[in-house]
């Protein structure tokens, strides 16, 4: 029973992070390998706002999320926009470099030690007993709920909203979309800020649950195979991929070897890449992007 709970929580973590990869890739065909570092930055921003708004947990979290959205938009406006027209590889490598930069900066500003933003906010972490003898912590439960809410609203936004439709149009054919009067730069900036927002939600909740340190960027990187297994341009795929990766990871760690934890996502990834490179639910596109 505890295993099932672990799988659900890990799936929620991976899914919440993976939808950030999917959003950006689907709209602008850029792979954001700095996603892990960006969500780590959001968690550190929470640490900062927690010291500003000591005691007002909601205000601190809202401020951290708002700052993250701004960071995401700025990354697009100041970095990725300059690379329009370059090879897709240049954009990917820029995000890699951004990740390295962010890791360095977070250590310089906040030190490399494990820190707990829940403490200055005065938030406790309860554990609930579930039927069947399993336990789940408050923040993990919130994380699962958030993931469901985020996916539901993203589906609704992309399917029904005016801006969501514009985003889909830009993702399908940027040239035609631009000719129909859609402001591509605004759409891309929106995709980046939405992506960092979902990442920030994940980062903040993980940090509140188990503290934050430099390992958080690794979680972000491990969620990437989940997005790719499901198909990089499919939200439903990200959910499915997260479930597959999370179950494989939990089972193998439990029954085989805990050291495997960092490799499993990538092993699953290789298998999928050789059999079905466009992912389980992704659209089969020309894989000729670089």
């Amino acid at each position, binding site marked *: 029973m505890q295993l099932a709970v672990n799988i659900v929580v890990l799936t929620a973590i991976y899914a919440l992070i993976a939808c950030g990869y999917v959003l950006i890739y689907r709209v602008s065909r850029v792979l954001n390998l700095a996603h892990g570092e960006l969500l780590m930055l959001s968690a550190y921003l929470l640490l900062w706002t927690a010291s500003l708004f000591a005691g007002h947990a909601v205000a601190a979290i809202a401020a951290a999320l708002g700052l993250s959205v701004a960071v995401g938009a700025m990354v697009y406006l100041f970095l990725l926009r300059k690379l329009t027209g370059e090879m897709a*590889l240049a954009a*990917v490598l820029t995000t890699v*470099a951004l990740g390295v930069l962010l890791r*360095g900066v977070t250590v310089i500003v906040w030190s490399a030690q494990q820190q707990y933003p829940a403490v200055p906010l005065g938030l406790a972490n309860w554990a609930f007993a579930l039927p069947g003898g399993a336990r789940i912590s408050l923040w993990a439960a919130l994380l699962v709920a958030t993931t469901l809410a985020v996916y539901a609203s993203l589906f609704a936004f992309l399917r029904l909203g005016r801006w969501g439709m514009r985003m889909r149009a830009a993702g399908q054919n940027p040239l035609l979309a631009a000719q129909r009067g859609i402001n591509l730069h605004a759409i891309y900036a929106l995709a980046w800020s939405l992506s960092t927002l979902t990442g920030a939600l994940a980062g903040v909740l993980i940090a509140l649950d188990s503290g934050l340190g430099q390992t958080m960027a690794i979680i972000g990187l491990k969620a990437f195979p989940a997005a790719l297994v499901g198909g990089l341009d499919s939200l439903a795929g990200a959910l499915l991929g997260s479930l597959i990766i999370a179950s494989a990871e939990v089972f193998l760690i439990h029954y085989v070897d805990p050291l495997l934890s960092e490799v499993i996502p*990538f*092993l699953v990834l290789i298998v999928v890449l050789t059999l079905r490179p466009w992912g389980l639910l992704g659209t089969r596109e020309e894989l000729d992007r670089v």
Partner: protein
Amino acid sequence: MSRRPRASGYFRTDYGEDLTLLPTRLERLAVLGVLVALLALPLLASPFLIDLAAQVFLAVIGALALMLLTGYAGQVSLGHAGLLAAGAFTVGILFKEFKAPFLVTLPAAAAVGALLGVVFGLPSLRVRGLYLAVSTLALNFLVAYLGGEYEARRGFSTGIVVDPPSFAGKAVTDAKAWYLILLAAAVATLLLCANLLRARSGRAWAAIRANETVAQTLGIGVASYKLLAFVISSALTAVAGALFAYYRGFVSVEAFSLFLSIQYVAMIIIGGMGSLAGAILGALFVTLFPYAIEAGLGALVGATAYAGLRFAVNAAAFGAVMILFLVLEPQGLIGLWRRLQTYFLLWPFRHRPVGGARR
């Protein structure tokens, strides 16, 4: 190799001349001068400088191998550290388990590298670009896991100590001897790469990079040449890893993080894609960069306060420089050099004549 025309009035009249490595006397003299300077360096330099040079040579081998794969054959790889680790661990394991000598472990490392090259080149036949980069990323984690597993199982949890190699019963421990060995290895790698590139294989890779379908139509075996690029690049990288293991005398997974892969990619970007000289310049730049940052930090006031943050400052500055190159000068250092050349060639004009005129 595609040569750009020169302004000097030197025109090639047959294909043989087009393939010559160093066509003009000035170039031959320059290369000779650099070689003499490199050979004379250990007589003059301090031990610190010699160590630095040795590190640069190791990086040059790895960067050349990556340049061959990414810069010429167009196959992106983010798993370079995994291949270096594979070479280093081959040496470490063969040494610990069988006391194998230098002359056995080095070819073994190359063989392991070539094998990994086949395994990770196979996806390249099916996936391209971004997806390929991701599958090579997996290589990094896989090799690191296997290495860590070996360390943990055999009880070398902090790393494997490797004795220096011995020639004719004498152990090579002298820094100057190492300098010469690594210099020779780097020069040999450079020659190998240059020769591969001016032969049929180089032309095939250029065609594949430009357009796979066209390459296939021209009768180039796309699959086999892609695999060849992977095999050669991986074998060279694994040898660099093996030399690294002997040079440091110590093998541990920690040395081969994802950051190292990123550094190698940075080398070929900062140096300039599609140029062997670029790979060398990039290796030089990336290897010396942390030392420059350290020196810069030391010169600041209150240097001791930053001591603990050295690595972080390094990473931040490194990321910033990489971004600057990607955004402002995608052609890298070699692009800067070419632009400078063009500037002087055209001086006092700013632009090439438009149309018609011989370029």
